[in-house]
Structure formats: C-alpha cells, structure tokens
C-alpha cells in the first residue's frame, strides 16, 4: 500500500537528528547551536508524524503541535538570553561565555 515504509522515515529522521547533534557539538556560534537544536526537534517531530501515519492515529500529530509550540516559546526566550549575553560580553561564541558573573 505504501511505497515508502515507516523505516525509511525513521532513518531519515535519525540522520537529521544526528546532523543536529553534530552541529551542537562542533559549532561555537551560539546562534548556530540554537538552530541545530531546532533541527533536532524537527527530526523528532518527523518520527512522530511518521508513526501517526503508519499507526493510523492522530495523537502523534497533536504531539508535534505541542512540540512546535514549546519550540516557539523556547526560541523567544533563548534569543532574548543571547541578546542579553551579547550586551554584556559582546560575543556569541559559547567558549568565550565562561564567566558566571561579570
């Protein structure tokens, strides 16, 4: 019935997740790290939608809806924090943000 099976979607989502992990681990720009986190959230969303489709149920899609809402909230606060850090230390490099107090 389906030309593309559940496993293909899961593997694709997993690869996307890994790319996100790699971005978080190897980049030093706080904004790019943040974007990699968004990519990881998206990969998880993809697995949820795929499961929803192949298990004939809508609950997975509702989960994705909530994850998106949380992601939006997280971005708003996270970017505000990055702007705050930049105001104090003039950098977005996470290696240079190493003082607990200034």
């Amino acid at each position, binding site marked *: 019935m*389906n030309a*593309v099976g*559940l496993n293909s*979607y*899961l*593997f*694709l989502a*997993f*690869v*996307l997740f890994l*790319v*996100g*992990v*790699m*971005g978080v*681990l*190897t980049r*030093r*720009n706080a*904004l*790019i790290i*943040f*974007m*990699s986190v968004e*990519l990881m959230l*998206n990969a998880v*969303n*993809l697995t949820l*939608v795929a499961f*929803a*489709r192949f*298990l*004939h*149920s*809508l*609950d997975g899609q*509702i989960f*994705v*809806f*909530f994850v*998106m*809402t*949380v*992601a*939006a*909230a*997280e971005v*708003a*606060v996270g*970017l*505000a924090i990055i*702007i*705050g850090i*930049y105001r104090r230390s003039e*950098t*977005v*490099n996470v*290696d*240079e943000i*190493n003082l607990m107090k200034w």
Partner: protein
Amino acid sequence: MLETVAFYALAATAVGAALLMISRRNAVYSAVFLVICLCAVAGLYVMLNAQFLAAVQVIVYAGAIMVLFLFVIMLLRADSPAEGLETLSFQRIFGFVFTVILLFQVGAFMKTAAPGAPAGGMSQEALAASNTEMVGELLFTRYLYTFELVSILLLGAIVGAVVLAKRKL
C-alpha cells in the same frame, strides 16, 4: 513510484540542507539552509497526510522562528564572528567521532528491529480528507488540559522574553 521519488528528493534536500546548515561559517547562510530543510520536512508532512502540520510548520518555523533568528543575527552582526579562542579544540573531533559511532549503533539497531505496534482505528481516507478538523477536535477534547498548559507556557515565554530583552523595566 511517484511517492518514492518524492520521498527521496525531499529526504536528500533535507539532509543536504541540514549538513550545509552546520558547516557554513556564515550564520546567515546557516539560517537560510535551515529554512530550506524545514520546508523539505513540511513536504514530508504532506506526504504523511499531515497537511495541517505542514502548513503550521511553514508558518511557525519558516515564517516566524527563522525570521526571528535572522533578525537577531543581523541585529548582533553575528553573521561571521571571529572564531576566537578555542578553549576546547579537541571537542570538534570528539563530537564528529561520537556522532558517527551513534549513527552506526542506531543503524544496526534499526536493521534488526522490526516495528510492530497496534494500529489505531482511523482510515487514511478520513485522515486525508479533513485533517485540520480532526486535529482540532482531538486538541479540544482529549488534549484540552495539555492545550491550556501550553498556553500558560507561551504566556510565560512572552513575559520572560520581554523581561530579558528590555534594558530597564
């Protein structure tokens, strides 16, 4: 046939854009490639009969979140910062090695494991015909309290963002 071609085209776009996203030096390019990746994922949602989520994905992620990212990148002129001092220079290599190991581990796991789970009772035709209505109905019945909780979370995020970003209240 068409479905297979579409899947592989979208998958290749998504993975390629994601790789370019983490490898570009310039943060603006990273953001642009992430937008492309997110749109490809939205295309996959359409293939999975989740049209509502596909639209929301483009509206929320590409239309709002990534514009916010670009706004901050431009505001802070953080497009290509000097990489500066590398306090943990070995971390890059370790990060790369560990992700490759994880890839093989889960890959091997997926080869052996066969997903088997009880199927829910909704037919694909019904799902495809009125996706938005059904998502809405479920959202306001079974998941009503979660929905309310999420709205409180959003309120908290708004207040938090304003407090953090404002110079003086």
